[in-house]
């Protein structure tokens, strides 16, 4: 495996072939914001927040760094006026769904996003898919999945599997950037199966 040398924010960075721009940047201590990325999972490219400006053979384009593979001579800029603008828009759109999510509030402050730019439609889920992918890839239980399409898309537990697996696991809870996942779990639990005895869900961190 030959190492690849690229330039991120004016810094020479070496990365293994096949690594993504995000990996390379993180290795070099350069921060790129993400919402749907998690080290243990396959890259998803869902939130688009890790968008960076990439320049290769004189051509500038905007790519999602969590999926874009490194290449020799690539010049990456993680902050530019246009990148910031793209990220600001993404944050503003997500905030129409989850206006109070702590991660989004912090990002909005950093990028000067206006949380009231778009009309609110609080579904409290930003469809990052972290819970669903964690359950499928790491736990291999598939207790939760997406249902619906377009504006009706939402996460939903499979009651039969959730009743067996979820009370002892709940490892997806801390991954969720909003609190919607826990709300969805409490709902399915109260509707379809009994919670673990003497352990109210509200007490969970």
């Amino acid at each position: 495996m030959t190492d690849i040398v690229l330039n991120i924010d004016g810094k020479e960075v070496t990365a293994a072939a096949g690594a993504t721009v995000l990996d390379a940047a993180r290795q070099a201590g350069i921060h790129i914001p993400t919402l749907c990325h998690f080290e243990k999972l396959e890259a998803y490219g869902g939130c688009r927040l890790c968008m960076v400006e990439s320049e290769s053979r004189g051509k500038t384009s905007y790519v999602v760094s969590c999926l874009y593979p490194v290449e020799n001579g690539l010049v990456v800029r993680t902050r530019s006026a246009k990148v910031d603008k793209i990220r600001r828009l993404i944050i503003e759109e997500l905030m129409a769904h989850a206006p109070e999510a702590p991660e989004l509030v912090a990002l909005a402050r950093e990028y000067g996003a206006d949380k009231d730019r778009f009309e609110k439609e609080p579904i409290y889920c930003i469809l990052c898919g972290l819970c669903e992918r964690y359950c499928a890839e790491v736990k291999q239980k598939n207790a939760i999945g997406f249902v619906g399409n377009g504006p009706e898309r939402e996460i939903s537990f499979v009651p039969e599997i959730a009743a067996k697996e979820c009370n002892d696991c709940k490892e997806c809870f801390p991954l969720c950037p909003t609190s919607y996942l826990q709300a969805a779990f409490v709902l399915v639990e109260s509707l379809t199966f009994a919670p673990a005895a003497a352990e109210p869900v509200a007490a969970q961190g």
Partner: protein
Amino acid sequence: MSEQKIDGIIEKYRGKPGALIHALTEIQHELHWLPREVMEKVAEALEVPFSLVRQIVSFYKTFSLTPKGRHEVHVCTGMTCHLRGAAKLMAKVAEITGLKPGETDTDSRFTLERGSCLGSCSIGPELIVDGKHYGRMTPDKVEDVLKRYE
């Protein structure tokens, strides 16, 4: 009878996760909906998680989680058909069948659906019943067409 047929379809695709949509489509055509028990059987036989089956079924409009009628009536309300009088056609079909778009009648004869451009603008306004296209449809002619489907 029908149950054997469903099992036959499922057996045909056993162990082939990639054939999920094919299997579901065939079952949908047979039963006109996908009951949960059938979805569970499909998940088990094709070795895919049930959550994925549910995701696919709820994603595509072809699949239905509630029983549909024996005949699916689609009235195109796309722009061209709209300009050629689809609204009147839809009103007439709704009157004949007693259904609003998305509904199924009590004896499961018809399910009425609205389509946004069904792809045959040149012969609009268009009506599709069970995949058969009827072009240049008018409120006067539509009753005769629907009579053919019992």
